[in-house]
């Protein structure tokens, strides 16, 4: 089990949910602390399911607790290619749940079983929703093409 990789994945997920790097880091560390205190989950997939579920709830609590400022759209000092910019805009146009699925499945490369366990839905629902979100993204990008 590579803890550092799991940390990075969870932090990216929290960053996306909270749009605040400090809060995301706090939530990531809190999720890890709870996982270690619980002493459950021997395999990596079990640990990921547990950590995502805890992080998701903590993000919801954090979001409710204070009004969060959104992240600046681009990181300072970065040159973003036009194609990447269009993709980011298309991603931003997706619903929050669709973005969450895309992030977990294609950015963090989590197995479907982990996503299904963390979100509390069936594997079939995860397949269906990710495919639909991906199709929607492709459609939006096609429309933007000259």
């Amino acid at each position, binding site marked *: *089990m590579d*803890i*550092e990789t799991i*940390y*990075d994945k969870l*932090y*990216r997920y929290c*960053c*996306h949910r909270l749009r605040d*790097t400090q809060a*995301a*880091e706090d939530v*990531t*560390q809190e999720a*890890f602390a709870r996982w*270690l205190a619980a*002493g459950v989950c*021997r395999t990596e997939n079990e640990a990921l399911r547990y950590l995502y579920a805890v992080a998701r709830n903590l993000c919801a609590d954090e979001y409710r607790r204070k009004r969060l400022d959104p*992240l600046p759209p*681009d*990181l300072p000092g*970065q040159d973003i290619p036009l*194609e*990447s910019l269009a*993709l*980011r805009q298309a*991603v931003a146009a997706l619903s929050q749940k669709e973005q969450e699925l*895309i*992030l977990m499945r*294609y*950015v963090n490369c989590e197995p479907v079983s982990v996503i299904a366990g963390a979100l509390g839905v069936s594997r079939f629902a995860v397949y269906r929703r990710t495919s639909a979100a*991906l199709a929607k*993204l*492709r459609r939006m*990008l096609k429309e933007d093409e000259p």
Partner: protein
Amino acid sequence: MKKSELKRALRDAFPARSPAGKRAFLRSLPPAPVSHLRFLLGQAGHIRKSAWAASAAVFALALAVGRLAPRDAVWATAALTPFAAMAAVAEGGRSALYGMEELELSARFGLKSVALARMGVLGLAHALLLAALAPLGPAGLVRTGVYLLTPYLLTALLGMAALRRLRGREGLYAAAAAAVLTAGLSLVLHSGPDAYAPANFRWWLPALAAAAVLTGREYRNTIKRTEELSWN
């Protein structure tokens, strides 16, 4: 954009600043839990090559004797098994031999778990080897199994008792002497009263039972000693 290209491009579509406190946090974490199987496999890797070599040599010699002199295969193999048992026992007492007990007590995996795991792994490997050797003898599976297991357990019993009572190299020498003594006993039993004859098999079962019970008790005492060490 193709679907595969889109999936690749998505990895850059969720930017996140590098976490500032990651290193410090990860350093503060206790080590990740390890499953029993992974722990056993890990400890198997720490068993000395000489212990594996001794076990392999016993197995190879037993096979050679079985091929060259099938009639002498049983008692000869029974005379060899004590050396395999000694390898397992010596592995369990390795920490004491090198005076590393206190250091290992403070390590991530305690002395008790490590000693248990190493002796268990070697014991299991020996059980498999003995099970593979048992059908080779002319005396049948059960009888050969009893003939091989009794000296093995007797050596384990004497070796553990020696390592528990004597410190350092003296304990190891005493365990080696126990192995030689048991091997010699097999030779004497063969050449003297012909204990391996079918008529004398009835004496072997109580001997095996006694050896098994006493070895179990000695094993428990050895583990208890490491607990006492930990308490001290």
